[in-house]
């Protein structure tokens, strides 16, 4: 019997090798096979000019509508600035114990903060965010362990503080 598959659905993120690296990290950390797909949708209708950002809630619904039953979980990957009505921005969000989630690499990039480009760091951050949101779809809550990948991150520094791995506790819950 083959392993359940997680689909990483990329919207406007052209660097295939970058995505493949992320897929490998997900497979290694969560133990599912990963399938890469490209989403061909005009994101214009998800853009909110008053906020100059993209609506994370409607994008999450979009990914949910594109989820196929053959896939165990689907995660939409974006490179745009996401918001939800109550918050100024989000790195990503997911349906807890649901089928899908979204993550954006837009605010993970050093250059957005006036710092020099660092592709290796961006890769690390992206892997953490993708695994974090997939963790929510698998039923994991935020973890108080400061180095667990499921630790809540509201700032880039928080993302850098944690590791790419699940802590012993969260892994135990996942096995259950």
């Amino acid at each position: 019997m083959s392993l359940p598959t997680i689909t990483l659905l990329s919207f406007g993120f052209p660097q295939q090798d970058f995505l493949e690296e992320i897929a490998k990290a997900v497979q290694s950390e969560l133990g599912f096979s990963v399938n890469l797909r490209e989403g061909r949708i005009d994101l214009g209708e998800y853009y909110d000019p008053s906020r100059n950002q993209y609506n994370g809630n409607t994008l999450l619904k979009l990914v949910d509508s594109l989820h196929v039953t053959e896939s165990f979980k689907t995660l939409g990957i974006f490179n745009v600035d996401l918001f939800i009505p109550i918050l100024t921005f989000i790195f990503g969000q997911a349906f807890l114990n649901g089928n899908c989630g979204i993550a954006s690499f837009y605010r993970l990039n050093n250059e957005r903060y006036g710092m020099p480009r660092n592709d290796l760091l961006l890769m690390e951050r992206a892997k953490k965010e993708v695994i974090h949101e997939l963790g929510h779809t698998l039923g994991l809550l935020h973890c108080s362990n400061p180095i667990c990948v499921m630790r809540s991150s509201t700032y880039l520094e928080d993302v850098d503080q944690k590791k790419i791995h699940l802590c012993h506790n969260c892994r135990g819950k996942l096995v259950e």
Partner: protein
Amino acid sequence: MAKKISILIVDDEESVRDSLYNWFIEDGYRVETAENAQKALHLLESDRFDIILADIKMPGMDGLEMLRRIKSIKPDSIIIVMTAFATVDTAVKALKDGAFDYVTKPFDPDDLTHLIRNATKQISLENENETLKKKVITLENIEDLIGESDAMKKLLREVESVAQTNSSVIITGESGTGKELVARAIHANSPRRFFPFVSVHCGALTESLLESELFGHEKGAFTGAMYNRKGRFEMADSGSIFLDEIATISAKMQVELLRVLESKTFIRVGGNKEISSDFRVICATNKDLKSMVEQGTFREDLYYRLNVVNIQIPPLRDRIADIPLLVDYFIKKYCMSMNKPPASIDPTALKRLQEFNYPGNIRELENMIERAIVIGDGKRISLKDLPLEKSIVNSSTESLDDFERAFILQILHKYNWNISRTAKALKVDRVTLYNKIKKYDLKPSDL
């Protein structure tokens, strides 16, 4: 496992409710949502929430009105108000009405995290505070009410249950049994514990002094009244007033007291302004008030007004099992206050203490121990340090003969077996005394 913090989100915008719901669920909180204030108030009737996050601008009842209503019912609720249209006025208004914090939508994810973390910290501080208060109260209860006998356990149970009510209490018991300590324990366990406990010894005051003491007086009310003075009823506002030796108050004061207890209002001596005060009355007496009512020396209506709950304190002779504990407690208490190392007690001395009759009850025992520590060698209390006068008139002395034997022996010891002086003290002749000594086979070595 620690209880989950619960959050109620009140906002008319579905997307806001959903976003916050998902955010907090991922953080492990228990979350409920309501689309308007009415639904939120309805939810609050049946459920308890640690934190309420509410929008100000909602159709129907707005967030500020809801805040006021919740605060009037549950003043300790933690309510955070949110608004998309921030003005200093609304922020100040919300905070004045008791909001925990105020945020402008949309907020930074980090601010939201900090906001909830601060609220959670507040909840845990309040819980900790409550636990500490309970601990302090427990300590106050046992501080001087020592004993593990059945009689003492029953008394403590009564104190515990009566403390939670607002009823008047009469504490009865012999002199020295600790009536005021019981009154203090009732107050310390009651919801009034953070307000004054005011004690009045009615028996020590003349009628006019008692009147002024209880009701206060205005400047110039009588010679020497140079200033306005608050009375004890006024001082006991929100707390408890303890009226000791209630049976000693005059007929006039009984009428006055009854009126105050019924109306909870009074006028200072020499004044004309009615003052109201919310106090609980705890009385004590060593007299049989019921018989006084029957004899017509205590008003029946006042008796029933005061005697809603009656707590009877047993005399020490009925709880001799507590004597070792009490002795130990008093030894520690006085050694500490006199800066002496803790002393011990000779088993023979302790045995004699358990056989003593204690007409003065615990106060007498306490005085005996204090005296023994003052005059003793400071290391071990022995029989010679105790002023027991070789009395064996105790609860085991039941027959008249037993009593007579014990009493004669006590007086003989008092006069060092001098027959003439003992006979004189007993108001009998020497022959009668000799006959009694022979009858009871008394010897100087008898204790």
